[in-house]
């Protein structure tokens, strides 16, 4: 990857007073790739983006584009196109003046400016709006002007700060698709920030999940979902039941209350661990199952939500588990409250984390 990386961030750190807003972030983005920074609010994703844009001065680290370090350059020399959450269109300028702002700052020729304006407006389908003012446009149109303004300067990197969050829900998907198309068509390397998981999943080539100023995991959607590197990733991407207990035997997991679950794989480690199970990857044990059930629990709550029945099950000591049973097979019948049910899961869907939060491998001879 490093051979083809277009944007490279090395050891990027921002410290405010005594707290690190961003700590030792290392990222590589390939030419034409869309990397999405995801995480809860305050995780450092926005600061990372603003560090790259140059609005915030880095405490340490390097920001390399095509091998050149931009970290100490002021933003106006970075050639990064930024799309703001609030669009930040210049209210006193028309659409055309907004779009050509960067070109005029670069002192391009009149002819060049007008041809690029035409081209860019065509791209975002706003040719007829050139003489309007931002306040005369709808939210979606403003968003496209913001995009056009950033694209017009033919930036080396496109930065997107929550570009969809100010849009109506029903507009988001189409705008998301539009942004992706434009970015792909221009072959632009892009860095986007969002707190919305679905948005991130839809738009990213790869995802970066951040928490407390640090990168938790970088990878494709599948990698983050199927192979979370730590409990935070497991819980944040999709949902996971995180169950605390002890590995007491190669395949036995004892809950604090004393109940024991049968693990799907065998482990060398012993002692306290966290078991991560996704609700949709756990199922009720049925008579046809060859293997015995892995645990039993009581139905605390059962909600029919269409595609599945959402069960809340509890083990004896209050540790509980969410389970999604697809309604396709059962026709939506629900188990009664308080009923004791047996549950099971496949070995692929079982992940165990040690107290430090790192995933532990199963023994080969499962």
């Amino acid at each position, binding site marked *: 990857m490093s051979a083809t990386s277009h944007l490279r961030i090395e050891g990027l750190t921002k410290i405010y007073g005594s707290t690190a807003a961003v700590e030792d972030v290392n990222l590589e983005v390939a030419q034409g790739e869309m990397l999405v920074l995801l995480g809860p609010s305050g995780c450092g994703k926005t600061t990372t983006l603003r560090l790259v*844009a*140059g*609005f915030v001065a880095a405490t340490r680290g390097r920001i390399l584009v095509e091998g050149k370090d931009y970290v100490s350059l*002021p*933003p*106006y*020399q*970075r*050639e*990064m*196109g*930024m799309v*703001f959450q*609030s669009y*930040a*269109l*210049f*209210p*006193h300028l*028309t659409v055309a003046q907004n779009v050509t*702002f*960067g070109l005029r*700052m*670069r002192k391009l020729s009149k002819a060049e400016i007008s041809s690029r304006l035409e081209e860019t407006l065509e791209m975002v389908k706003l040719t007829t709006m050139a003489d309007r*003012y931002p306040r005369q446009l709808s939210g979606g149109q403003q968003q496209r002007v913001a995009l056009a*303004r*950033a694209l017009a*300067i033919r930036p080396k990197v496109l*930065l997107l700060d929550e570009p969809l969050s100010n849009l109506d829900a029903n507009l988001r998907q189409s705008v998301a698709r539009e942004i992706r198309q434009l970015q792909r068509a221009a072959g632009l390397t892009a860095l986007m920030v969002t707190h919305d998981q679905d948005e991130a999943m839809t738009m990213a080539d790869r995802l970066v999940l951040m928490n407390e100023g640090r990168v938790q995991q970088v990878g494709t959607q599948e990698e983050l979902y199927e192979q979370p590197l730590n409990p935070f990733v497991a819980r944040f991407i999709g949902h996971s039941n995180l169950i605390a207990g002890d590995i007491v035997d190669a395949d036995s997991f004892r809950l604090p209350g004393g109940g024991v679950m049968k693990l799907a794989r065998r482990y060398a480690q012993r002692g306290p661990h966290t078991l991560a199970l996704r609700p949709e990857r756990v199922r009720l044990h049925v008579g046809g199952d060859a293997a015995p059930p892995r645990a039993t629990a009581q139905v605390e709550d059962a909600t029919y939500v269409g595609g599945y029945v959402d069960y809340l099950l509890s083990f004896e000591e209050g540790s509980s588990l969410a389970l999604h049973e697809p309604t396709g097979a059962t026709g939506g019948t629900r188990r009664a409250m308080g009923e004791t049910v047996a549950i099971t899961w496949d070995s692929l869907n079982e992940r165990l984390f040690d107290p430090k939060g790192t995933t532990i491998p199963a023994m080969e001879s499962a």
Partner: protein
Amino acid sequence: MTTRRPEGLTASMLIGPATMVVMLSLVLPLALLARYSLNKYDRRTFMIDAFTPENYLRFVTDPFYTGVLWTTFSIAIVTTLLCLLLGFPIAYKLARSQSRWKSIGVLLIILPLFIGSTVRALGWMGVLGRGGIVDAAYGALGGSGISLLYTSFAVGIGILSINLPYMILTLQSVIEGIDARLEEAADSLGADPTRRFRHVVLPLALPGIGTGGILCFILAMNAYATPFLLGGARFQMMAPMLYREFAVNNNWPFAAAIAFILMLTTLSLTAVSGLLVQRRYRAP
């Protein structure tokens, strides 16, 4: 938003009485003043009913009076421009500051407003006068006897110090209303600080510059205590002259005419600058 509904009617009925009071208390004295300005002055009865433009003619045809108007106008323009030049950077810093010192900074700027202009002028007298701070400092450096008091410089400094807080506060609130992201957007589009200021901050701050400028201009045109105390007897500005005509010479008709000339000059200049700002800012 179009709220041309019964509530609108109710609202206008509610503000009706207040508007009437304001109009009456504003228009009635003005009407009386306008009437007086057409009367004749008489030493014994002070005023004789008449309908003559001679008070106005006396003012506009006498270079002494037009000179005073011109001095007042020059001082007002210069101090307003200086307020703008000095106030903008401070206002900008305050508006964009996020530190906890910001509120202290704002307080420091508001604080002088608690002290009347007379008291502040007296303070300046101590600074600029003979034996004052400037004089003492100059003396310590080997010079002798410098008195800046009773000069146009003293009046300018005095008015500047009084008007600057108004300018800063006006600009600050307007600059705070300019989304900081707009500046970042300009930044990311390749505008260096100078061009960012010229193409984004300045045009968007123009209404504030207009309001602050008009405010300072009006205050300077009507300044009384400052020119009276810091300008001394030899430095003539409109408001002290107006007061002298009214209270010392008891010439109400002429004082009324001066008042009207001052008011109309200020108003028309204000209106013109207001229109210019509006045209510049308002999109067609």
